[in-house]
């Protein structure tokens, strides 16, 4: 006889589960730091999470060695990605199974995502950099949700920490993205790519027109020429501001996520932080997609011809 089920389990089991979770939340709420503040006294021993501390700079877990914990996390991310792709592409089969199938899905989705706006030829150029950035950021964000990150300590400092909560890593990624965008611009357009930034053409034409006698068209062209030069200056500025914005978007999102989880752990130690863990996993993916996608978008804008 089929029993009535909700969310994959019997109704009474579901109700018991919800009640247990609510009880855990209430217990940790009252027994934790909030309850201690309201009712006075100390929080219960097993619910006493230390006050969250945030250090903007990455810590050095090994004294004397210039290795920070974010560097270690970045290396581990690279190793994990390398190992994953190495293991997945060892014995390649025509009909993929298991890990190879999963990796092919990822790579193919990225390739389609990139070739859609960029086209076949330019998509080939953009694919390695954009996909690498995406994979690095998303692997880094998801690895930092593994228990042990920020909790295992060496010499009193956490051994591992999400690499993108260190301002240097997003800045490095932003510089890489900037350099590649400019490189692709020159590769696609040659030296005429410089015209995007230093556009003296319309002004020169207007001056020529004035001297050859067509003063009226020349004067109206003069205004356009000056505007074109200013547009070039704005373009230069926007290319540099883009780097800052790239950096702080990723850094801010990752740091805010880390602090959010820390504060939720401090306030309500049980059940509720898991929700924020899920949120963090989602945001890690979205931010990685945005970093890769924006690099792609700017690259498309750089290689697109004006005509």
């Amino acid at each position, binding site marked *: 006889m089929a029993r009535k089920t909700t969310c994959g389990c019997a109704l009474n089991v579901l109700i018991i589960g919800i009640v247990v979770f609510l009880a855990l939340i209430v217990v940790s709420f009252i027994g934790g730091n909030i309850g201690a503040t309201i009712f006075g006294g100390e929080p219960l021993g097993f619910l006493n999470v230390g006050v969250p501390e*945030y*250090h*903007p700079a990455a810590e050095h877990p090994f004294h004397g060695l210039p290795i920070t914990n974010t560097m270690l996390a970045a290396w581990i991310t690279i190793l994990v990605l390398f190992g994953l792709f190495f293991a997945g592409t060892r014995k390649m089969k025509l009909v993929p199974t298991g890990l190879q199938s999963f990796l092919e899905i990822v790579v193919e989705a990225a390739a389609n995502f990139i070739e859609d706006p960029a086209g076949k030829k330019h998509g080939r150029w953009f694919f390695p950099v954009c996909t690498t950035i995406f994979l690095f950021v998303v692997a880094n964000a998801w690895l930092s949700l593994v228990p042990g990150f920020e909790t295992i300590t060496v010499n009193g400092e956490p051994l591992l920490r999400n690499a993108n909560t260190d301002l240097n890593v997003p800045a490095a990624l932003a510089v890489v993205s900037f350099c590649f965008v400019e490189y692709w611009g020159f590769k696609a357009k040659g030296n005429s790519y410089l015209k995007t930034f230093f556009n003296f053409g319309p002004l020169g034409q207007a001056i020529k027109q004035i001297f050859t006698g067509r003063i009226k068209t020349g004067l109206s062209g003069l205004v356009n020429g000056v505007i074109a030069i200013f547009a070039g200056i704005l373009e230069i500025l926007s290319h540099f501001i883009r780097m800052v914005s790239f950096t702080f978007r990723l850094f*801010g999102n990752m740091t*805010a996520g880390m602090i959010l989880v820390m504060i939720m752990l401090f306030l309500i130690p049980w059940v509720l932080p898991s929700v924020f863990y899920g949120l963090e996993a989602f945001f890690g993916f*979205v*931010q990685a997609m*945005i970093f890769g996608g924006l690099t792609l978008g700017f690259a498309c804008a750089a290689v697109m011809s004006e005509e």
Partner: protein
Amino acid sequence: MDTQIWSDLAKFIAIGFCAGFGALGPGIGIGLIGWGAMNALGRNPEARGPIMTNMILAIAFAEAVAIYALVVAILLIFVA
């Protein structure tokens, strides 16, 4: 002692204003994005996939501005 209280007061007011006003603009922006996406969805329900993807992308952009304000607020709390 007195100056300590005043500087703490200034700090907390600054943090509150920073986070509050910083969240105001992006909130409006995300609302507008959702409005636009719902309109598009109502007119063209088959295009659900692309609309959702682009909506999430645009929301992330708007949200990034709030995150900038949040970064400033966090720095004020922990560093200032």
